[in-house]
């Protein structure tokens, strides 16, 4: 008995701890712009609508496939930053309209529009960026003696061959202005030719060989802290890349070739959207298809780039045409109506369970209140941690989910009643009923949780938000039923009111038609003085097994 009491106490303490942890998480998140109420989604709160328009060369057209692909990639990128249920549509057959709840910061904007085309090219030569005066001087010199290519020059043997640098290419390198990279009209550069470009910060100029490994060969990318060979963090952020088999082979071949070359031809230029983000020297042959890039990333830029690389590059470049606030499509009235309707519904649930379970309904109501409170805390915390947003569909889903949480209690109470019907005393009926009910609850919740996980991992958009909500409520269901409902019932059955099977307790063995088997702890059914039940006295004195047996023999006949 003492041990049981200690276990009950521990369960309740755990519940308090869980509640306190989420309250504390919420409290801590206020510093980062969190709060005590959940954030609302696009339909209820409005947000920002960004219209992206494709950057097209003269006479170029966007195909439907390109647009669909771009929408999909942009959606993946937006989803990767949280479960905010953004809305992405096309407009007029060429624009992409992205609606995001709340304000849109620069990092998100960059995430949306940068095409994220990554290429790996060997470095042929490198020099400091030119000043405008130097460019002017070189231009004048070139006009005096125009560069002439030698038609008999040998074909370059591989991508690192200096034969790629023809006099014409050298001339354009000598007059290359790094500011050109900022020009959105620059467009795509051919992959199989050498490239004259600058570093992203505009301080170095490069001539790079043709593309050896493409961004599409990247199978996965992630961001994290760079570490030294001993595993200590360097404080710098890196983007880790995993290549597919074609990419791994190409990567191995390149590193094999350039590692032994003299500087700067032993360097490898990592080119993102036309600019070199980093050009590390290769000091070993990489055979496992893994690479990491460091290059002055912050945590945000590293994870943003990793997401962009993971989901692939946009088939066409986009630029922002307009960025405007968009108001909620559903008014405050819809949300209020939803909440009022939900409250009325829950009130009806309470009334019904009082009818059904009498005093036990108090346990149901308290459990539901705790489930509701926990859900609120978790959702509010996830609002700031995961950018989880509540849409009207989400609110409705939550109200209904809390209603179905009540089912665990029903399963439990009915099992306890079954045990009472079998003639157990109340305390042991609660324990035995719990053992069986918990197994059922665990199995059915496991199925719901499986649904939540699969849909969360596979689906996109609204469905993902739904899966998230389902997962949360399923876990809360388990927590509440195991750490509150059951311990509460254990405590209550120690009171006289319940242990004596008071008619209003909802656990009255007489009303449940329990069998008096002499050693049971409750009063004789006759003494209960219920006229209706006493007439069946004789029949009740049969054991339940006897009755089942006689019932089945009757059926067989």
């Amino acid at each position, binding site marked *: 008995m003492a041990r049981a009491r200690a276990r009950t106490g521990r369960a309740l303490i755990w519940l308090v701890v869980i509640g306190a942890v989420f309250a504390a998480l919420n409290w801590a998140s206020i510093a980062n712009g969190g709060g005590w109420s959940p954030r609302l989604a696009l339909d209820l709160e409005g947000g920002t609508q960004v219209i992206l328009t494709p950057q097209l060369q003269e006479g170029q057209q966007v195909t439907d496939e390109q647009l669909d692909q771009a929408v999909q990639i942009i959606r993946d990128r937006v989803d990767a930053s949280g479960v905010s249920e953004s809305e992405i549509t096309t407009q007029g057959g060429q624009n992409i309209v992205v609606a995001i709840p709340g304000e849109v910061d620069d990092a998100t904007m960059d995430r949306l529009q940068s095409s994220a085309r990554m290429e790996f090219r060997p470095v042929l030569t490198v020099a400091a960026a030119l000043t405008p005066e130097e460019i002017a001087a070189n231009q004048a010199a070139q006009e005096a003696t125009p560069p002439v290519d030698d038609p008999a020059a040998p074909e370059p043997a591989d991508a690192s061959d200096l034969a790629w640098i023809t006099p014409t290419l050298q001339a354009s390198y000598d007059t290359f202005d790094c500011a050109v990279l900022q020009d959105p009209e620059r467009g795509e550069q051919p992959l199989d030719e050498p490239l004259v470009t600058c570093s992203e910060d505009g301080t170095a100029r490069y001539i790079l060989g043709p593309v050896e490994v493409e961004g599409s060969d990247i199978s996965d990318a992630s961001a994290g802290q760079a570490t030294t060979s001993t595993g200590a963090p360097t404080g710098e952020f890196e983007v880790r890349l995993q290549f597919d088999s074609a990419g791994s082979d190409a990567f191995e071949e390149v590193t094999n070739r350039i590692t032994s070359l003299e500087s700067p031809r032993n360097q490898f230029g990592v080119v993102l959207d036309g600019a070199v983000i980093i050009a590390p020297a290769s000091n070993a042959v990489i055979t496992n298809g893994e690479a990491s890039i460091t290059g002055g990333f912050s945590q945000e830029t590293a994870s943003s780039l990793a997401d962009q690389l993971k989901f692939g590059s946009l088939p066409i470049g986009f630029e922002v045409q307009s960025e405007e606030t968009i108001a909620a499509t559903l008014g405050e009235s819809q949300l209020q109506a939803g909440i009022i309707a939900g409250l009325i519904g829950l009130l009806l649930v309470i009334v019904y369970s009082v009818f059904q379970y009498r005093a036990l309904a108090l346990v149901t109501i308290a459990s539901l209140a705790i489930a509701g409170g926990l859900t609120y805390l978790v959702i509010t915390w996830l609002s700031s941690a995961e950018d989880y947003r509540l849409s009207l569909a989400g609110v409705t*889903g939550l109200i209904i989910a809390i209603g179905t949480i009540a089912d665990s209690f029903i399963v439990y109470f009915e099992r306890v009643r079954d045990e009472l019907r079998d003639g157990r005393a109340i305390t042991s009926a609660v324990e035995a009923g719990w053992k069986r009910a918990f197994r059922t609850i665990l199995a059915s919740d496991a199925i719901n949780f499986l649904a939540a996980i699969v849909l969360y991992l596979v689906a996109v958009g609204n469905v993902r938000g739904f899966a998230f909500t389902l997962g949360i409520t399923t876990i809360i269901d388990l927590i509440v039923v195991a750490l509150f409902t059951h311990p509460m019932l254990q405590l209550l059955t120690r009171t006289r009111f319940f242990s004596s099977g008071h008619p209003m307790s909802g656990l009255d063995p007489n009303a449940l038609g329990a069998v008096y088997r002499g050693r049971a702890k409750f009063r004789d059914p006759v003494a209960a003085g219920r006229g209706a039940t006493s007439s069946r006295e004789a029949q009740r004195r049969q054991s339940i097994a006897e009755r089942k047996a006689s019932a089945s023999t009757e059926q067989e006949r």
Partner: protein
Amino acid sequence: MASLTQFGNRLYTGESSFPFIPRRRTWFLVALGIVAICILGPILRGGFEFGIEFRGGSEFRVTGVEQVDEQVAADAVTSVLGAQQVPNVAQIGQDGLRVQTEQLSDSDTVEIRDALASALGVESNEITSSFVGPSWGQDITRQALTGLIVFIVLVAIVMALYFRTWKMSVAALSSLAFDLIVTAGIYGIVGFEVTPAAVIGFLTILGYSLYDTVVVFDKVREQTAPGTSGTYADNINLAVNQTLVRSINTSVIAILPTASILFIGSFLLGAGTLRDISLALLIGTLVGTWSTLFVAAPVYAQLRMGEDIAEARAKRPSERGAVV
């Protein structure tokens, strides 16, 4: 309500019982009839009505509105298209409105443009119209379907392992299929627009339906465990009857909030997210409870025809001790 408790007592002992299993041929016929109606009904009606979130549509942008009022714009559109076509209206920036409708003919576009202009007090040329693509595109549908299929395969395996028989998996999935067909069918027959909210409601049902079936099957598993006496048909029927009070209570409790949201959603607010999701849920909950009792359990009994529990025990003696 004490009578439900008394009823529960009689069901528990088997003193009174509802013939879920003995009359299963009748229930199968009923189920097949319902399924046939739910497949033929929408086809005869001409398929589902998908919302503009799925099909794309027309969009009007009004700028320079002095008094931005979404309701005025919505009324202007319904005056042209009729009350069934509720547009999506949203305020853009300080003085702009975005109105989305289903895809319109050229003449309707002109009419709506004029109606909006006069209702909002702006010049017709301040209103631009364009075509918008679906916000719930093919990719979302494809991913959701992939998720669904993966889930169903996994759930079949998990249930087969948990209940230690593939027959329960098959029975549970057949009742799930019944739920989904019937819910979708009723949606199609009533002709409500299929919106993303309805799809979310649909997915919720999927969870609820399986949940309900697992709860009942867990009792069936107990009553048909090796070591129990009687036949599969009798014991399954007893198990289902023993959980009948639970099934009734659970569905009442799940239905109360749903019905209240549906009532308030559709009578006070008209068409919208609340109505869409709660309708799908209400139908789904009712159908889900029905199918556990009248489809899943009878199908399982049918699959067990000709087997008896004693034989199962003889085949798998090792399991005897494990069953509670």
